[in-house]
């Protein structure tokens, strides 16, 4: 299979995943937003004995509040309660009324762990902050890579980043039943923005070197060779980074898992895009952008 075909297939696969995620989102099965983004209130109670989910739900029904209840813990004696759309003033009253309502059946109920409240404004600020940080980081990287390499490398690398970020978002949709998006997702996303570009840079560095060594070869051949030469490094680096992050995911508490899983997805997506897509995109871009300049370039090198 030629590089061209391989890269095209990979691009198509990625696009299919994006489209699938988009379609799911449009049908209401989008990202499972935690309260950091969606706003609302989350609290945890330890009930002292095994809980019937309906008991907890009934209390909230009685209060006319729409609450999402999940039962957790090894002994199924902990409940996690999420309520959307409530006003700040109600936070305390809701807690009190819930404890009053439930203590008939569960006298040992105690608040346990976190109680979080996020107003609707905070979530929006968080989102716009996240969006702008990614845009700014990408723009600065584009400039840096354009200076150190060339403009098409910068553009190809940033497009690769966009791919990885979209992939992380897409997997947040696909894995919505096991993971929530909270503010740490932004940190995870920016980690990937910083980290997965390394793979692309190392390969582009090889391309830069191979271009000088064999100026006669066409771009796709050079890309293919460079990717192959870097494969050992790419795989070993990815494995070592994954080892520690996966250890964190397996052993970590819920908030660590929320952070580690998107990073794992991002790292895998980064390796995939760096090896299968970005080089090819660079070759295409460079060809288009340097028509007319090409003769000059070759002369300069000779």
């Amino acid at each position: 299979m030629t590089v061209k075909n391989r890269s095209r297939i990979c691009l198509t696969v990625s696009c299919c995943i994006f489209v699938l995620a988009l379609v799911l989102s449009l049908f209401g099965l989008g990202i499972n937003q935690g309260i950091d983004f969606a706003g609302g209130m989350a609290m945890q109670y330890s009930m002292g004995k095994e809980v019937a989910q309906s008991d907890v739900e009934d209390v909230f029904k009685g209060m006319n509040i729409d609450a999402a209840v999940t039962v957790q813990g090894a002994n199924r004696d902990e409940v996690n309660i999420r309520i959307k759309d409530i006003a700040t003033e109600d936070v305390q009253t809701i807690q009190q009324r819930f404890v009053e309502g439930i203590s008939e059946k569960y006298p040992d109920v105690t608040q346990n762990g976190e109680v979080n409240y996020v107003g609707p404004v905070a979530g929006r600020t968080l989102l716009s902050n996240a969006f702008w940080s990614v845009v700014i980081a990408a723009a600065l990287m584009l400039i840096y890579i354009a200076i150190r390499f060339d403009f098409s490398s910068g553009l190809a690398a940033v497009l690769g980043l966009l791919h990885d970020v979209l992939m992380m978002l897409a997997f947040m949709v696909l894995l919505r039943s096991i993971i929530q998006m909270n503010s740490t997702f932004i940190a995870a996303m920016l980690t990937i923005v910083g980290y997965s570009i390394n793979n692309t840079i190392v390969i582009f560095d090889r391309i830069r070197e191979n271009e000088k060594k064999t100026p006669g070869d066409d771009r796709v051949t050079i890309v293919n060779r460079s990717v192959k030469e870097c494969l050992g490094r790419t795989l070993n680096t990815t494995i070592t980074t994954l080892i520690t992050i996966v250890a964190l995911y397996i052993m970590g508490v819920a908030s660590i898992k929320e952070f580690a899983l998107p990073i794992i997805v991002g790292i895998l997506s980064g390796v995939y895009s760096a090896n299968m897509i970005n080089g090819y995109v660079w070759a295409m871009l460079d060809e288009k952008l340097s028509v007319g300049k090409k003769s000059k370039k070759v002369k300069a090198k000779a």
Partner: protein
Amino acid sequence: MSKKTSSNRKTGAIIGLCVLLVLTIVFGYLGFNGMPLDGRGLYRLLPWMPTTNAENWPESLALGLDLRGGVYVEYSAQQPDEIEGSFDALMDGTIAVIQQRLTDKGYPESTVQKINNGTGIRVEIPDVTDPQAVLDLIGTPAELSFRDPDGNEFMTGKQVQTASYFFADGDHQVAFTLTKDGAALFADMTAKSIGKQIAIYLDNEMLINPTVQSAIPNGSGVINGMGSEERARTIAAQIQSGALPLVLTQQKVDTVSATLGDEALSTSIRAAMIGILLVMLFMIIRYRMNGVVASWALCIYMLLLFFFIAVIPGIQLTLPGLAGIVLGIGMAVDANVIIYERFNEEMRAGRPARAAVRAGFKNAMSAILDSNVTTLIAAIVLLVYGTGSVQGFAKTLLLGVVVSMFSAVVITRMLMTWFVKVGLNKPSLYCTMKNTVEEEQK
């Protein structure tokens, strides 16, 4: 002649390796145990390496709220119509008041900061057992108290009718008027206390303690010497409304219990340790002697990184911060992998080990530099635009990248050069001599 220089080189390398080994061990011992030399005129060096035991956590490593337990609140602030003065000045006043209250009530480690371009306030209070009580505390009205010469309260803010800011005689002042019964109390007390001092306190902070010159019968007074307009306006607003100068609305509340924090801390540290050991194992299997170099460099990297986290003020270890460190480990190893792959390429091409070290570094450097700079860019953007825990993550990531560059460029290079000089230069110590890449090129 050449034999002599080579044996000289060998001795130099052995000495170098021994010195670095001793340094690593000493620094490692200090990192975990510290140097308890206080009381003998020497400064005390605290341990700085993290442990899985949350109760014995080294005090030099500051923990964020998510690992330590505590309350995190974000407020948006509005200026009430009846309060005059610039919003920014009142904001600074509000922050000062909240900070003062929290300190008074036994939370001196709380931080109060402006957020969202100065339109909101973020309060972080560690080690809280009753979050709601603390939140109430922030919102409670300011307590004004008038105390007689013996320090006993004889009047409170309830007897104050109005308070306003004015500027006279080059001094920022607050003028107040009292209610009818307040005026009577005040007249009585001032008449009794001529020549003595009475004091006015706000939230236990003494505002003023003038010596009474004569009885004040008309129920009005002045607090002078407020220092700045901002302070005078804030105090006037507090006395007037009995509350904070600005109206605060909770936007976000996060409370983490200490037990949850402890659990998060110990499991992540344990996970990180297992991860690091597996990485070392992997590197040694994959790169043999160079894997030993990488593992050693990784130990030094960890010692340095946590040392800096401990000594640089303002860096707290948070959950995302821990993940940042784990990622930093990945980056540190990445630089090593790039170097070793290049080194192995040179070895396979038949170069002698010493030349391979030099060429390996030369070829790897541009990739290491470029990839680290791009990560730095992301970390800096996070630092500038992130809030709260995201910022904590950015700081550790930033530090991680810088220290990992140092460890890859300086430590790894030193170790590799010394290993080769000592005589560990057989290719089979470093890689298999497969020539797949070379052949394909031809």
